[in-house]
């Protein structure tokens, strides 16, 4: 049985210009111990699917799916209370803007402790011990000193480490990372990606990387789903995707990478759109 299984997911938003189809019948499966990358450009619906799974979409969204199961548990029929029990504990998520994702009014130690108290039976001194353990696990230098630091006193990379600590606090079975390194510098990005992959490998959890960056995909993923305008273009394991892309859109994306530039001009997606007709 897969960890997360979604069949034929459709999401529509109400807007001033009428309904907007953000996702049009996409399937997702993630197994335990697997790194799935969902790649796409803005408007591809890559984040929408996971936000729908987490129940984080606004009311203007209409969600429909033939199947939406986490470990055999139907997420669609779940009550809000039961959903909260699963989300945050068994499924957790980290976001693009680490500094904005933390509450500026509380210390990071306190916020980590709150997460633990909400989902585990740990109380009192044990909470602090576990928080320090977590901070150590995500490679924050000087956890004791950082415990009482406020988010604005730390750098973006450190904040993202705290977010990761919060996400893995309850040993989730599935971690969803939505553009976790887009706001960070290249050298910090490398560290955070390495950390995520190492944590995933050590704990055997499933990891979904949502990204627009082919480099991040190449560095982390086992399997890749390429999306474009709410549809799935291609799904393949990472090596075959880069070696033998089947879909014209994937080909276009790969050849638009400046490092793959062969001639004087970069081929663009529209060059391929004419030929491939997607």
């Amino acid at each position, binding site marked *: 049985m897969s960890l997360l299984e979604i069949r034929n997911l459709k999401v529509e938003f109400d807007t001033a210009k009428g309904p907007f189809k953000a996702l049009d019948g996409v399937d997702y499966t993630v197994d335990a111990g697997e790194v799935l990358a969902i790649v796409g450009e803005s408007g591809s619906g890559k984040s929408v699917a996971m936000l729908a799974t987490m129940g984080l979409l606004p009311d203007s969204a209409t969600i429909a799916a033939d199947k939406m199961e986490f470990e055999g548990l139907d997420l669609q029929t779940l009550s809000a209370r039961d959903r909260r029990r699963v989300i945050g504990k068994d499924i957790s998520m980290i976001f693009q803007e680490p500094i904005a994702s933390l509450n500026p009014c509380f210390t990071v130690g306190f916020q980590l402790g709150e997460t633990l108290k909400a989902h585990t039976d740990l109380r009192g001194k044990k909470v602090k011990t576990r928080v320090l353990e977590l901070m150590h696990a995500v490679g924050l230098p000087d956890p004791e000193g950082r415990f009482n630091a406020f988010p604005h006193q730390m750098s973006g990379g450190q904040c993202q480490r705290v977010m990761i600590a919060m996400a893995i606090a309850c040993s989730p079975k599935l971690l969803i990372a939505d553009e976790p390194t887009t706001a960070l510098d*290249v050298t910090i990005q490398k560290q955070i990606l390495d950390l995520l992959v190492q944590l995933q*490998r050590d704990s055997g959890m499933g990891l979904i990387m949502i990204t*627009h960056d082919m480099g991040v995909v190449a560095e982390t993923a086992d399997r890749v789903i390429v999306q474009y305008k709410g549809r799935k273009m291609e799904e393949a394991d990472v090596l075959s995707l880069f070696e033998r892309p089947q879909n014209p859109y994937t080909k276009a994306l790969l050849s638009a990478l400046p*490092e793959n530039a062969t001639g004087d001009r*970069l081929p663009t*997606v529209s060059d391929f759109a004419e030929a491939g007709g997607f």
Partner: protein
Amino acid sequence: MSGDTILKVRDLYRVYETKATMFRKAKSLTAVKGVSFDVERGTTLAVVGESGCGKSTLARMLTMIDAQSSGSIEVDGLPINIAKTGISKEMRQRVQIVFQNPYGSLNPRQKIGDVLEEPLLLNTDMPAVERRDLALQMLQKVGLQPEHYGRYPHMFSGGQRQRIAIARAIMLKPKLLVLDEPVSALDLSVQAQILNLLKDLQDEMGLTYVFISHDLSVVRYLSDKVMVMYFGEVVEYGTRDEVFNAPQHDYTKKLFAATPQADVASIRKRLALKADAA
């Protein structure tokens, strides 16, 4: 065209002073520490570095948004020191800038035609009809349609907005164009289009670029010379091939190592390592 230096920067410093208050001592922060370089006509200098390295401060000094604390800037023989001499129309017509975020750099309440005509209106005595014709020509030149003339920025995609921003910057036919991360907020396929456009414009108009970026693959594709900055200092400066093939400074090497590799060989290597570990 070698030897025809258009931008000459010598020993440039920028110091930010915070004033002493009742509770704080006066502090000074040096964002740019003694930077010197030359750029030849019709070539591209890439300035590479991570956040806080002073590359944006450098851009602001080159484009006369901020004054330098000391040192000299010379654009096509015209010395620039706005703290002493102020800005003349002549200076303004030589240097223009394109910002990173196309969503923030266009006035939401200004129609595209007005955006493009503003520089002409303020710096030349051109009659309105001529200004409009030039704006229409420019729209076509950057790959947009004449009917876009009367629309508002929010009706455009990110890539189109960046085309508009580029069009505005070259309305005055500047000698030097400073590009402050012009493609890093854009999707991959759009990024390729904008990079192509920049190359075309350079060939057609003989523009000189100072291209500020954190993305090494883009830099490699576009630049003639590369300058790497780290904490306000230039740690590496040379032709593209020199820097990319034989980086000298440790920081440059670290930067290269951290850049995600999206080629098949690197993926193979990573998967092999992973299989070994398992």
